[in-house]
């Protein structure tokens, strides 16, 4: 430090201009950071999808794309529907009570997590880290699955398992059940995915 006494008014102005510069810097950064947001085109791409489900046989699954995500439509067999009530104590959230309104719409907040018991609609993306689980509809022992496997879905990435209603099993990496997208029936065999009556 030099021996010259400090000029306090000079210091005040130095601090003031430093602050002004910092504010300018932050203001300039805002547009740059904003460019990271989804573009208008990406936002507009979220239109609803109409699906004809008449061709799906019991025990089969149809995958359609909605907002770039896979949406599954499964026509469950009566045995698969009956199985849903037997395994509730193995599930983390059997009654879809977590994050109300976010994961499960009100009209699907039942044991089968669907409007019609046999037709199950869900976003095929694991709530853990976004992989798409694979179909494991065959019951019984098989690799990566417990011996009393009741049928459902297995995520290949981190081994989370879901039952035939997309409900996650206990003590798995995925924290939540599979998301049920907003959907409604236009007629008996016409399903609209992405919109429901509440919208």
């Amino acid at each position, binding site marked *: 430090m030099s021996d010259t006494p400090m000029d306090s008014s000079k210091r005040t102005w130095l601090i003031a201009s430093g602050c002004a510069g910092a504010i300018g810097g932050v203001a300039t950064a805002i547009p740059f950071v904003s460019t990271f947001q989804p573009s208008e085109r990406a936002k507009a791409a979220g239109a609803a999808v109409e699906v004809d489900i008449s061709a799906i046989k019991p025990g089969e699954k149809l995958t359609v794309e909605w907002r770039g995500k896979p949406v599954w439509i499964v026509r469950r067999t009566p045995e698969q529907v009956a199985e849903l009530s037997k395994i509730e104590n193995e599930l983390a959230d059997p009654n879809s009570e977590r994050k109300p309104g976010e994961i499960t719409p009100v009209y699907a907040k039942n044991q089968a997590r669907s409007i019609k018991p046999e037709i199950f609609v869900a976003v095929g993306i694991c709530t853990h880290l976004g*992989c798409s689980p694979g179909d494991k509809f065959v019951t019984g022992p098989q690799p990566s699955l417990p011996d009393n496997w009741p049928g459902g879905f297995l995520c290949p990435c981190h*081994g989370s398992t879901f039952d035939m209603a997309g409900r996650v099993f206990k003590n798995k*990496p995925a924290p939540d059940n599979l998301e049920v997208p907003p959907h409604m029936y236009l007629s008996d065999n016409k399903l609209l995915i992405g919109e429901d009556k509440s919208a």
Partner: protein
Amino acid sequence: MAEFKEISPDASNGEKLLNWVDNRFPLSQLYKEHLSEYYAPKNFNFFYFFGALSILVLVIQIVTGIFLVMHYKPDAAVAFASVEYIMRDVPWGWLIRYMHSTGASAFFIVVYMHMFRGLIYGSYRKPRELVWIFGCAIFLCLMAEAFMGYLLPWGQMSYWGAQVIVNLFSAIPFIGPDLALLIRGDYVVGDATLNRFFSFHVIAVPLVLLGLVVAHIIALHEVGSNNPDGVEIKATKGPDGNPLDGIPFHPYYTIHDILGVSVFLLVFTSIIFFAPEVGGYFLEYNNFIPADPLKTPLHIAPVWYFTPYYSMLRATTDVMVNVLSIIAALSAVFVVLKTAMQSRGKVITVVGVAVLIVLLKTFDAKFWGVVVMGGAVVMLFFLPWLDHSPVKSIRYRPTWHKWLYAVFVVLFIVLGYLGIQPPSEIGTLIAQVGTIYYFGFFLLMPWWTQLGEFKQVPDRVTFAAH
């Protein structure tokens, strides 16, 4: 500022030119400080090849990267095809691309060896803390660089790997989902994501990386290199003021490193020419299938260099969170009963641990998995202050310390292996043990590194002339 130097008019043209430059730019001075008069310990061993090799791989990656960008198209519709175009239609394109893809794995092999060297010889200890911290920052940059580069071929593994890693950020409470949206620029990984990752991969991260490499070397040359004995060679200087156990980096180590470079290139080129995929480890088979947002491949795993950390992520289940809570509670009990800490310190510990346990049970295991994965890397930054051993080098530590290090290395490799495999119950259990050991190894260092019978550190480095 140097004074303007006049040179004798009889000097050669070369000398006159050098003098002209030196009066305007410290060329000779830089050459001396960093090469011809940078004294490095004379007892460097095998592990000391890897610093120079990492510079070589960096250069390979930059040069091959420049040429790949000339043919690659960062567009989700054509990216996959443009990589195949490079492989099939661009003259020698396959060679450049395989050099780049093999270089990525080679970079991690070399850097892991380089870090292991620092770990066993205490090269992070005072006064080399900043050398180590710059190095850890380079490691982080390298991971970001590798991850974003892996999206560019737009294969199935690229796509789903990016999907998983970006979703890691959405596990952060409150801000997570918005943060993941900002990273992707869309609601799922898509064209916007590919474009910005391309920008980060070819411009932003390499610029930061180069700056950090310069800082790493400047910091190293300021304090001087450590060596396998952990002896400060600057403590014993000869009459000329240079360390008695030091030799100029050039020509001694430049020539020495040519051997390392030759052996490295022998292996590197063998892989490029004969096994560029290395059985699915360097280039995963699923990445030869174009990205399909509707279908995750049945088995997905990151490239091998990320798998140790990926295993730790997978190991963090609800059971693991309970185990961590119990460990935290037990350590609080231990602090209260067995240590001589002041009662205020004990109260703070108990409250801190109680808060931690509440948090552990409040947030999802998914979030803690991300914390564990990130923490495993971030912890390395604190190593200089965790190690309290009275000696630097493993050579003069108690023999059982070597066993702790050996188990650490074995478990790290096992974690890496498990991360490649599909999830299984026994695998998860082993990964949980490995994760706890990894964290215990570092977090308990202030305690265990002081224990045991230390050997006498010599005044001079041990070196047998050959």
